[in-house]
């Protein structure tokens, strides 16, 4: 016999809303990178316009989670789930912020000539977005192994970001007139590296929810 039906329905709703939040944050990142690739400022506008909706949904999810903590006094895996949702929610909101930051940089780059830079922003974006998607797939499936595989991907994103820093710094020294474009690209690479960090956080929260193990900061406390 099913028990705590209302609570279970509320948990389902919480999950559904978080996935909606995830969809919005992912879309914002994709749009910001599309804006970078095409230098289409109208796409930047779409990113800016999506931010209030993401922020609103963040508050709604937090409120629902708070209500469930207060009214249902969840325990064990339910408690870990709600705690994870609260944390993932904050990380997704920050992913949305990174998309806005990228769109701001793209808009600034519009004032300068579009030149080839020694950094593959779309590839970096593809990798960090893949991390987010995989971490969220782990959340959807309650799959800690899948979430675990995200953690290893972060090193690759960090390496690409470091390589971008080295290459763009050299270019600034060689051609100081390209400094504005190089700095904007550097910041975008850094924003995408942060997206990877948020994906790592999300993956760690999935592991915490499913296994009850705290693997943050390379610790493993079960």
């Amino acid at each position, binding site marked *: *016999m*099913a*028990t*705590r039906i209302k*609570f279970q329905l509320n948990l389902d709703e919480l999950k559904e809303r978080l996935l909606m939040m995830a969809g919005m944050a992912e879309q914002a990142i994709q749009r910001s990178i599309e804006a970078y690739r095409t230098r289409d400022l109208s796409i930047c506008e779409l990113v800016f316009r999506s931010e209030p909706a993401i922020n609103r949904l963040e508050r709604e999810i937090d409120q629902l989670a708070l209500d469930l903590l207060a009214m249902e*006094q*969840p*325990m*064990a*895996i*339910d*408690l*870990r789930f709600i705690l994870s949702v609260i944390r993932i929610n904050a990380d997704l909101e920050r992913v949305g912020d990174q998309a806005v930051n990228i769109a701001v940089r793209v808009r600034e780059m519009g004032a300068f000539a579009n030149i080839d830079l020694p950094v593959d922003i779309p590839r970096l974006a593809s990798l960090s977005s893949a991390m987010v998607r995989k971490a969220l797939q782990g959340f959807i499936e309650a799959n800690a192994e899948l979430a675990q595989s995200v953690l290893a991907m972060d090193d690759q994103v960090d390496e690409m970001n470091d390589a971008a820093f080295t290459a763009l710094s050299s270019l600034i020294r060689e051609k100081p007139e390209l400094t504005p474009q190089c700095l904007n690209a550097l910041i975008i690479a850094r924003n995408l590296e942060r997206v990877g960090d948020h994906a790592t956080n999300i993956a760690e929260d999935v592991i915490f929810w499913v296994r*009850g193990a705290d693997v943050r900061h390379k610790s493993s406390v*079960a």
Partner: protein
Amino acid sequence: MGVGIDVEHLNAWYGSTHTLQDINLNIPANHATALIGPSGCGKSTFVRCLNRMHETNPIARATGVVKMGEVDIYMDASPVEIRRRVGMVFQRPNPFPTMSIYDNVASGLKLNGFRNKAILDETVERSLKAAALWEEVKDDLKKKSGASLSGGQQQRMCIARALAVDPEVLLMDEPASALDPVSTSKIEDLIFQLKSQYTIVIVTHNMQQAARVAENTGFFLNGKMVEFSSTDMIFTNPKDKRTEDYITGRFG
């Protein structure tokens, strides 16, 4: 001071019903230990085995070892002696209705032959203070009957009565289940304060209460101890699926 309790291979029966099955457990001294589980799981029987109350039922029996410190309570001590060392508080306060507050608290000592008024006065005051009731009743000690107090006050008076005989262990069988939230909170505060001097074992159906008051928690199911661990582990990351199903309310 409290004393640790070691339980080894404890089995208990009511008639032919095997109500406790091979319980092994170490209850640390001066800690609060909570026992949770559905009705009929054996947790109340278990605490009644800790002060030999279980055997007061003619069809009941128990086997195994229960040690309080170095004393095997079934081999080395009489039931009377054990019940002096182990105080008990029940679900519903059970004051002696015709007795004053003073006599209720002093009753255990008087039964044990204490007649010295100064010692009785001192013990009643100390016990009522320890039970956080002194300030509320000190002017009516001999004027009011124990039964005239509110439910929460009666329960604290019963705790004072249990403390008056200077036990080492305090067993509490759902001590706050009949009380309102304010009285419940007072009992929980009391448990927090008392465990520095006594070993406390509390049976409760209220899992938030177990989480609030106890350092360790045991989960009973169908006469067996399914899981015993630190309270934070039991309520955040239990190891046994049955524990998780129970505390998340998914039994059914």
